[in-house]
């Protein structure tokens, strides 16, 4: 793949030549994240979060593997073995706090990465497969994080596991046997803890595998960019190394400073005090809340309070609990259909005035409010707020987005990436103008051959 002007790997020493002949791994790395990968030159800082997500995946795997050397997945000793890590293992407290806060930071950077994709329509052709693989990664992350939170076997571990595994019981006919089979009993127990540990160890490597596919799929069309105009020529791009390694590098340092502030000075603020009480199946905590990164989806789960019945007959079609479960899983599964729900040929939200309004004043406040509602007890006014914002969430993706993409008149696009950066683009002799990033063309944009929008030429 890649563009014709991509630099080619040239082994210099006899040894690297020898390696290149036998196993061209350095060549692959060079083409993937080295100077051999041309990247649009106009990426903003929202494009840093992919590399950061890969970094935090590595942090989780490395700290996790070492923690697993000291942890024991048995209900009678799991809680104590975590305290053993905190007290007796050299720098065990650092490993565990880095792992616990690393999970939160992994989700923070992933959410930034997803919202980047949503605003700049990174899911559109020709990048649908990258997006679909990304949603798969996100689902795997949620499963991994949920099972990881069960391992310390504190009160929230146990009761969170009980609530979430209980969701499977809502499935008609097969629900209860399925739940018993998944949990290995009627409530989380020693068998549950053991299998969760096994899967929690396995899934990160599955994630790493899907990440490789995600990056592979990315390198076919190349990275998107804030204008949404595709790369046309060499002046539109810079080599990944050193340009984006330098940009990602210093930004990683910045994020690590914030990460360290949490790990060293506030390691427990993102957790729940109840999880420092050993799991007790006989004592239910006052408020069972999941980790903060699950709160929006937890709010959607709890938004459905009424059974779906045939009016005046009392016949229940779908129970409220099942509706909630369908909606919660549906809220993420809907992302799989995004490339086909949003039909606008313009990629970047910057050139879509109507879409932009619904994004900043619709979707973003909705996600924030759902996060808040998910952390609140199930009482008014939080119930009704969850319902309103859940309704908007589905309206946004399933109704507003398809309609907006059909009726909206996009703003004119820049001729090329080079022009959007430099304000002019000499090579094609257009009237780039000197000042603005956008050319003063009145022509209504036309769809290009690949379905993407390119300015009229």
């Amino acid at each position: 793949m890649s563009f014709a002007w991509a630099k080619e790997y040239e082994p210099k020493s006899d040894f690297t030549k020898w390696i290149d002949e036998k196993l061209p791994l350095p060549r692959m790395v060079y083409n993937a994240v080295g100077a051999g990968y041309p990247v649009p030159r106009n990426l903003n800082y929202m494009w840093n979060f992919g590399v950061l997500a890969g970094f935090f995946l590595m942090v989780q795997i490395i700290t996790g593997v070492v923690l697993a050397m000291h942890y024991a997945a048995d209900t009678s000793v799991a809680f104590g073995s975590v305290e053993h890590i905190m007290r007796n293992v050299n720098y065990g407290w650092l490993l565990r706090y880095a792992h616990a806060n690393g999970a939160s930071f992994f989700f923070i950077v992933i959410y930034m990465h997803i919202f980047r994709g949503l605003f700049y329509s990174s899911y559109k052709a020709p990048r649908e497969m990258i997006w679909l693989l990304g949603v798969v990664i996100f689902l795997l992350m949620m499963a991994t994080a949920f099972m990881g939170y069960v391992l310390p076997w504190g009160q929230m571990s146990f009761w969170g596991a009980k609530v979430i595994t209980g969701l499977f019981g809502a499935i008609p006919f097969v629900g209860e046997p399925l739940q018993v089979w998944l949990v290995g009993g009627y409530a989380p127990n020693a068998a549950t803890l053991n299998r969760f540990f096994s899967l929690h160890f396995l899934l990160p490597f599955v994630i790493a595998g899907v990440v490789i596919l995600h990056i592979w799929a990315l390198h076919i069309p190349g990275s998107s960019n804030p204008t949404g105009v595709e790369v046309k020529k060499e002046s539109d791009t810079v080599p990944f190394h050193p340009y984006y390694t330098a940009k990602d590098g210093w930004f990683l340092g910045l994020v690590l400073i914030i990460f360290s502030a949490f790990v060293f000075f506030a390691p427990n603020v993102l957790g729940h005090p109840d999880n420092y009480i050993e799991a007790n199946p006989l004592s239910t905590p006052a408020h069972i809340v999941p980790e903060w990164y699950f709160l929006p989806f937890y709010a959607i789960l709890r938004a459905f309070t009424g059974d779906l019945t045939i009016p005046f007959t009392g016949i229940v079609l779908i129970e409220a609990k099942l509706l909630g479960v369908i909606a919660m899983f549906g809220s993420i599964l809907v992302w799989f259909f995004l490339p086909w729900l949003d039909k606008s040929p313009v990629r970047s939200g910057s050139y879509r005035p109507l879409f932009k309004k619904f994004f900043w004043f619709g979707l973003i406040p909705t996600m924030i409010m759902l996060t808040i509602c998910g952390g609140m007890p199930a009482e008014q006014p939080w119930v009704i707020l969850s319902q309103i914002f859940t309704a908007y969430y589905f309206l946004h993706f399933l109704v507003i987005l398809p309609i907006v993409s059909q009726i909206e008149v996009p703003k004119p696009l820049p001729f090329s990436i080079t022009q959007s950066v430099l304000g002019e683009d000499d090579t094609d002799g257009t009237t780039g103008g000197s000042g603005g990033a956008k050319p003063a063309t009145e022509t209504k944009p036309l769809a290009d051959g690949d379905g993407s929008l390119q300015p009229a030429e």
Partner: protein
Amino acid sequence: MTIRLGGIIFGLVLVAILALWSLFPGAYSLATEEPAAKPDYYAFQEENIHPAGGFSFDGVGGKWDNQQLQRGYQVYKEVCSACHSLKYVAFRNLEQIGYNEAEVRAEAASWNVPGIDGVTGEATTRPGEPTDYFPSPYPNEVAARAANNNAYPPDLSLITKARPDGSNYVYSLLQGYNEPDPEDLAKSPNFEPSPPGLYFNEYFYNINIAMPPQLYPDLITYSDGTEATPEQMAQDVAAFLTWTAEPSLVQRKQTGWFVIGFLIFATFLGFMSYKQIWAGKKPKKK
């Protein structure tokens, strides 16, 4: 202009279900129903602020006060340990709060820990070794409940991490056995005095705690001569329990400064090289 209808219809149906079966009844009940009754003790916890202990380990540059930790240990040993275990702490850990090896050995020997008779193999007790963990005052939970009016005194190893703002909470709770505040009392028409066996404590989550008041002036005689006021003892034992919950707290903060200092330096270098590398690719300022 073709608008694809499948997704739109699905979305509208889903939202209709939510709206008709949950949202409208919810709105109706919100409008018509009385808000959920607040518990009688609501007024006492309205502000839910407990006083801060003002500890030496507070803040980003906090340090242990070993004198205080040793006093707190004395309070635990002479008062709390009658009912509360400390199962994740070993005697050898006491070296971290300033006792030397011989003192730790002597301190461990002053506790009786479960053991096995070397001849008969029967369960017995023996003097503690530094490698032993603090023994539990009761053999099991049933015995603990039987001795405490069916209340179970929690293990204290992690108590300051298992409660929100735990250090200040423990400090406040131990001094919270006051008469109900008249202002809050006026706001709580259904207030009832604590049932027998429970004690009014305004910082406990439902104001009736099973633990009797413990700290009285000069309850213990501090070995360093500090006056044993209830406030002093509460602060000392809260500090000690903060240490038991997280012995690495101060080391963690000190390591943090070193790590963040290094990261700031490295990030600055990274930023400068980023500026230099990109200098030729940025549009020239006009």
